[in-house]
């Protein structure tokens, strides 16, 4: 019961802090619109690159453009949601370094909610919007033998993917309690992860695919469910039910991320400045 009430409290606080930052952003409406457009352009570069590649070839690793677009849409939409909600955790190292993290500890609000909502950047919706547009086009363009299960699989996959990426952001933030200057390491997993998933698993080396399936289960963000939708063989010959394992995998990611976060928080020592 105590855990549940703390979670409700955390979400409420998150909403209040995020709302405050949105109001502050909206004070400069034109600047906000411009940065959203810039964000759309910047995050769209990845897809432009894929389009340029497909202007030269018909298939990449045996996958056609609509199929790769499906991978891209799922990966970027999930990542966009996670980055909007938890992306601010990545700048935790700065707050530890300059000592302003101490103020978060004395407030009667869960620390994670404060860190995640810190400088809440609404401009980041650009990435998610761009992902949804590509996903929408891909769903129309691919040849899928639609069933109720397959239709339901799409939103479930997006939500689970967002949870998996959010867990990565939180774990990365916890790592910064240990090494404040090493913030860039987590980019390799977050931005690197979403980039990797934009391409079919058949492109990558077997060991790399094994790693992102069994060690860091990114494959469940899109590779496995997309293979199910398209009627393609699963990577690494995973069993048939693996496409629906998303919620379970998401849970398996959240638990260690939460544990690592608590561990990092407990080991925190103020710089004293």
């Amino acid at each position, binding site marked *: 019961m105590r855990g549940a009430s703390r979670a409700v409290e955390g979400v409420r606080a998150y909403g209040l802090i995020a709302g405050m930052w949105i109001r502050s952003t909206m004070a400069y409406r034109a*600047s906000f619109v*411009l*940065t959203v457009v*810039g*964000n759309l*352009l*910047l995050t769209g*570069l*990845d897809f*432009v*690159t894929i389009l*340029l*590649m497909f*202007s*030269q*070839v*018909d*298939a*990449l*690793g045996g996958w056609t453009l609509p199929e790769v677009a499906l991978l891209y849409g799922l990966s970027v939409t999930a990542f966009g949601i996670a980055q909007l909600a938890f992306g601010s955790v990545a700048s935790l190292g700065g707050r530890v370094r300059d000592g302003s993290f101490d103020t978060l500890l004395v407030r009667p609000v869960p620390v994670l909610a404060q860190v995640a909502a810190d400088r809440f950047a609404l401009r980041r919706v650009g990435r998610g919007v761009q992902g949804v547009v590509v996903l929408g086009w891909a769903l129309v363009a691919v040849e899928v033998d639609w069933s109720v299960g397959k239709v339901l699989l799409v939103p479930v996959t997006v939500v689970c993917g967002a949870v998996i990426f959010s867990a990565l952001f939180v774990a990365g933030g916890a790592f910064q309690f240990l*090494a404040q*200057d*090493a*913030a*860039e*390491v987590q*980019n*390799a*997993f977050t931005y*690197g992860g979403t*980039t*990797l998933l934009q*391409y079919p698993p*058949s*492109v*990558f*080396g077997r060991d*790399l695919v094994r790693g992102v399936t069994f060690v860091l289960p990114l494959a469940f963000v899109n590779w496995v469910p997309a293979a199910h939708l398209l009627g393609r063989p699963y990577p690494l010959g995973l069993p048939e039910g693996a496409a629906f394992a998303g919620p379970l995998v998401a849970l398996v990611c959240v638990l260690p991320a939460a544990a690592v976060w608590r561990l990092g928080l407990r080991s925190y020592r103020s710089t004293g400045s």
Partner: protein
Amino acid sequence: MGSWRVYPAVVVGGFRRYATYRVATAAGVFTNTVFGLILVYTYLALWEARPGLGGYDQAQAVTYVWLGQALFAMLAFQGGGFEVELMERIRTGEIAVDLYRPVDLQLWWLANDVGRAVFQLLGRGVVPFVFGALFFPTALPGEVAVWGAFLLVLMAALVVSFAIRYLFALSAFWLLDGQGVAQALMVTGLFCSGMTLPLNAFPGGLGEVVRVLPWAAQLQVPADVLMGESALWEALVFQGAWAVALLAVGRLVQSAATRRVVVQGG
């Protein structure tokens, strides 16, 4: 112009300043290596489907990837060099103090950026490049002369990179808020330099345009010199022309900006 001895001192200062952050450097090396790995596999698939794309074979495409990762921090493709600081100084008004100093503003920042770039080439570039060369088939030259030519072209690439970022930074005199400029710098830097796809693999008219823009001088030209796809003199003429033109425009914009400068703050 001030005393000429001051600029080497600024170069050394820039180098030592970045050399202080060892953990951050190691973290950057790790991230560049991971991104290199991801890109290498996608390029291998692309060149398998279309052998000889852009005149490269697979080994050359792989070399291109690791070169891009090695130069990523040095040439600040997505920003993060001196221009962040310069824009902040313009925004806060501290630029007034800089203009009062008996040194040339453009040369001062160039020296500062050269120091940073040399450290980032050594600190962040070498390890991912060696990693790539060890674990993937690459097309690296055996002759020392080619490597010498490559270093020369690299220095020219840095000057062009500086000149582009200097122009972007000066826009802060008019815009003040640097966020949109930083985004524009990032988009053009990543895309037009060929960080996402080699410029010689761009299709049709788009390819012809991006290959003559100044950004081509940063990654495509050094890669072509290293892999023997382009003659040294050809590369240097292209880079030199853009460097001179952009530095000159930078001076013009600078004098226009400083004639109407209104210092912020009180």
